[in-house]
Every structure is written in C-alpha cells, then in structure tokens.
C-alpha cells in the first residue's frame, strides 16, 4: 500500500532534500507525489523474491587505472565560478556553520 501523504510528510522530505517550499508548493506536491506514488505502487504486486537488484548495467567492466599523477584544474579556475570566493587563498567563502 502506498502510504497516504500529508503536508507534514512533504515538509519532512523537503528538510531531507534541503529545500524550502512555499505553502502552495507543499499543497501541490502533497497531491502530486501521492498520485505518482499510487501509480508506482503497481510494482509491489510483482513477486521478486530471489531476483537480484540492477543498480547499473555494466558488463564485464574494469574501471581501474594506474595511479599516476595527471594535470588537474588550477585552483584559480576551480574557484572562478564561485558566488563568493577568496580567490587569492583559493577558498570558497560560506556563512558561519557554528552559532
């Protein structure tokens, strides 16, 4: 059974997802997410006991490579898109973390 969604559920998920929702968005998402989950619920009718999960479809794949240093992005370019950077020091500036 798909659980019934409440505004409180939507607020809880938004907090996990680091989103601030307006009251309209909360109402809208409560209805729409419930609709989508009710539709998605049909997968639960299938018997999948003993069926392995597919997380990706890689077949016989070796992704390792030798651990050799290679050129990487210069710090000045890495911070160039930051909304607030201490470019000289090569740092991203953010608001305080601890009160």
């Amino acid at each position, binding site marked *: 059974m798909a659980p019934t969604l409440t505004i409180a559920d939507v607020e809880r998920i938004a907090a996990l997802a680091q*989103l601030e929702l307006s009251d309209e968005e909360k109402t809208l998402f409560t209805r729409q997410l419930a609709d989508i989950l009710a539709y998605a619920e*049909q997968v639960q009718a*299938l018997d999948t006991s003993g069926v392995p999960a597919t997380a990706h479809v890689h077949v016989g794949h070796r992704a390792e490579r030798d651990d050799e240093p290679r050129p990487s992005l210069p710090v000045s370019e890495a911070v160039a898109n930051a909304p607030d950077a201490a470019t000289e020091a090569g740092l991203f500036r953010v*608001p305080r973390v601890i009160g």
Partner: protein
Amino acid sequence: MSLLDRTARDIRDEVTAGRTSAVEVCTAFLSRIADVDPRLNAFTLVDGDRALDRARTIDRRRAAGERLGPLAGVPIALKDNICLRGMRTTAASRILDTFVPPYSATVAERLEAADAVILGKTNCDEFAMGSSTENSAHGPTRNPWATDRTPGGSSGGSAAAVAARCAPLALGSDTGGSIRQPGSFCGVVGLKPSYGRVSRYGLLAFASSLDQIGPFARTVADAALVLSAMAGLDPADATTAREPVPDFQAALTGDITGVRVGVPRAFVSEGVDEGVRRAFDEALDTLRRSGATLVDIELPHAKYAIPVYYLVCTAEASSNLARYDGVRYGHRASLSRNDDLKTMYNRSRSEGFGVEVKRRIMLGTYVLSAGYYDAFYLKAQQVRTLLRRDYERAFEHADVIAMPTAPTPPFRLGERLQDPLQMYLEDVFTVSANLAGLPGVSVPCGFAGERLPVGLQLMGRMFDEATMLRVADAYERAAGWWKESPPI
C-alpha cells in the same frame, strides 16, 4: 540544393574538397538561426564569433594541405547540459544561470578534434527533466512543424534546431527518451547509444545509471558519423566500455535480407494514437518489403517500465543534484548577516530549481528514505532486472526490436504541464532502453493528423548499434521521409 538542406556528410565532402569553405557553411547556418530562432527558441546561446574563428582555422589548414577530420567544417549544436570550456552552460536552470565551465566534455573535445564547428547551446528541460522542453528557465522551444506544439523533450532545442535547418547536427542526452522522443516529434533521427558507449565526462548528471549522450541528424548515416567520432573508452569516465568501436558507416549496407525485427504486439496495442499506429504499421510493412522478417515477441514486464524508471531516476537525481548548494558554482541566495550555512543551502536551492526539478528531488528523496527504500527503490531495481531479462529473451528471437518512439504525435504547448503523471506516460516506449542499457534510435516514419511527425523506434542488442543502424538506414532509404522539411 541549398547548403542548409545538405547532410553532414555532403558538407564534410564539400569542405574537404575545397568546393565550399567552412566559413561559408558556418555563415549560412548562423544566418538561418538569426532568421528562424526568434520563432523557435531552440538556442540558449549562439557564439558566432567562436564558430567563425574555428571555421577560418579549418579553411586555413585545408589551404595548407593538411588532412581534415571526418566532420570537417560541419556545424553542430550542443544541448545546454554539455560543458564547453568558456561557453556558458546552464542546463536550462536558474541555479546555473552564470556557470561558465572551466573544462570541456569529452564529446565536445572529440567533435572539435574531428573538425566539427560548434555553433552554441540548445534549450532543454531543466537538468533534462521533462518530455516537452517547457521546463526551461529560458522559456519553451517550439516545434518547427507546428509552432503551437512542443518539440518533445528534454533535448527539444537540439531536435528543433536540426529539423529547422539551423544545424545539420546536434547533441542531446537521453535518460528516458530525451533524444528519441524529440527526434520523433521533430521528424529527425535521434540516436541513444548503448550505456557505456559514449563518455559522459562533462555532461551535467541527472541519473547516472541511465544517462547517455547521442546525436540528432537528418539521416541515419549522419548520426552514425557523429557516433563514430565520439564513441569509445574515456579515462575520464569510468562507466565507458572497453568494447571495440566498429565502423558504423561501413555497417550501413542497405541490405537487411533475413534480419529479424521483433514486434512486441501486446505492449504496443494500448494507448497509442491512431495516426501513430497507422504510421508504425506502414513502417513495419516497409521493413518487410525491404527483406526483413517480422517476428512477434513478448515483453511481459515492459508495462512496469514507467514506474520503475521514475523511481530509479528520481532517486539518482536527488543524489546527483545535491551538489547544487550555492558554494562552488551557481546561484546563491542573498543572505542577511545572521543566516547560517544551512539557510544558504536551502534558500539557494529553492530559488534556483524549477518546479519539476523540485518535484523529482522530493520523490527521489522519499523513495530513498528510511521505511520506503525496500518497498520502492529496491523493488524498482529488482523489476529492472526482470525487464532486462525480458529483452535478453526477446533478442534470442530477434536482431532488432521495433515499436513507436512515442505514443502520440507532438502535443500542444501547456497541454500536459498541470499533470506530471500524464507527462511521464509519454515515455512509455523509450524508458526501457535506458533501464536495460540498450541502444535505441528514432527514425522519421511519416505523419499523423495535420502533418505532425511520427517516429519509428528501433532497439538493438547491447553494443550492437551497427545492426540497429543498418536496419534504420535501410528503412530510411526505402521510406524517404528524411527529405521532408518543416514549414518554418
């Protein structure tokens, strides 16, 4: 024939032989864009200076007797979620409205190494989430065949640009049909390669177990040309396959005698628009007359592909999009002195993301959260295995599988925006190729209703793009729809 109507191969041959200059070609397409794009909104950015500069270099190198690459002087547009160093890349999101990548996607580097000329970036649904190119911070793209309708999505700008002769080629990305469905809606070829065939380095990630980059072109041969130029192992993307890359051009022999085309009759029997059904049946007939053998196949779990897809892709998206937090790039909300880090994250994300992106992040967060993970996410991954097995069994009896690309012709702008579930159902025939990792291609197969394009989708075995493209090319030659052009 006007330069604009030429195929990429023709243009390449003309430029290589010195009968036309790369600058002449580039100028013609830039002027076409200036002419029609105000009515289409297919581009988010056109960099004519950069393109002409590249074209001049190619002409100079030819004059100096240098051998040019396989895409010599051919203009191409990139979907705006593919990075090009120094060119703004937004993924059609407010959260990246000022982002200028410090590096290029591997595909962009390989295309330029093949002497293609990048014209600019094309519009799409925000972070490739949508089936209509309406979820864009840059406004919707319009369909060149009927400007009150959508070009499909999410790579609608790329499809519209190629259909409207604004570029002979474009790149898109396909997570659940985002190349093939707009290909169908705009009457052009849209190709999604096998998972692992093409590097995603420099593609802004949406759902990493599903995303693939692929080309739009007017002909199958042109799409094969681009695939050959981009495919293969990339040390910068650990998901690229070591599989050898065949010569896709050489595979297009025109001979499909005895090739078995599987048709999942039960799966395609419901919910398909009448005009689409007629075009699809005629396409099957054409394939049969061209020498292919039609065989019935069963895909018993295909009807679960949409719920599985939306559970898997939203879960992956909620994780991938966690990186947009206002720290290293992108939009940061203006804050007051007392606001803390968490407020900055939350407010920047809420201001920067559009409603569909928020909806998917919410859904993905929910299905991954404690108490629901097993019932939704894990279950979806198990059904994904059942779906893969369906295809493995079907490919014991068939060499390629045929179905309509989309259940409908292009729908009207705004028609489905209020009901996300309706919009998701548009992807019914495309998502399973992504879930199973298989290659798929949409080829124009006629029109429904008032001259609205319809696409035939062909799917191949994993890493067997060659057979799939051979059938698509033979169909295209027999049917001839590729010669049609939109009224714009």
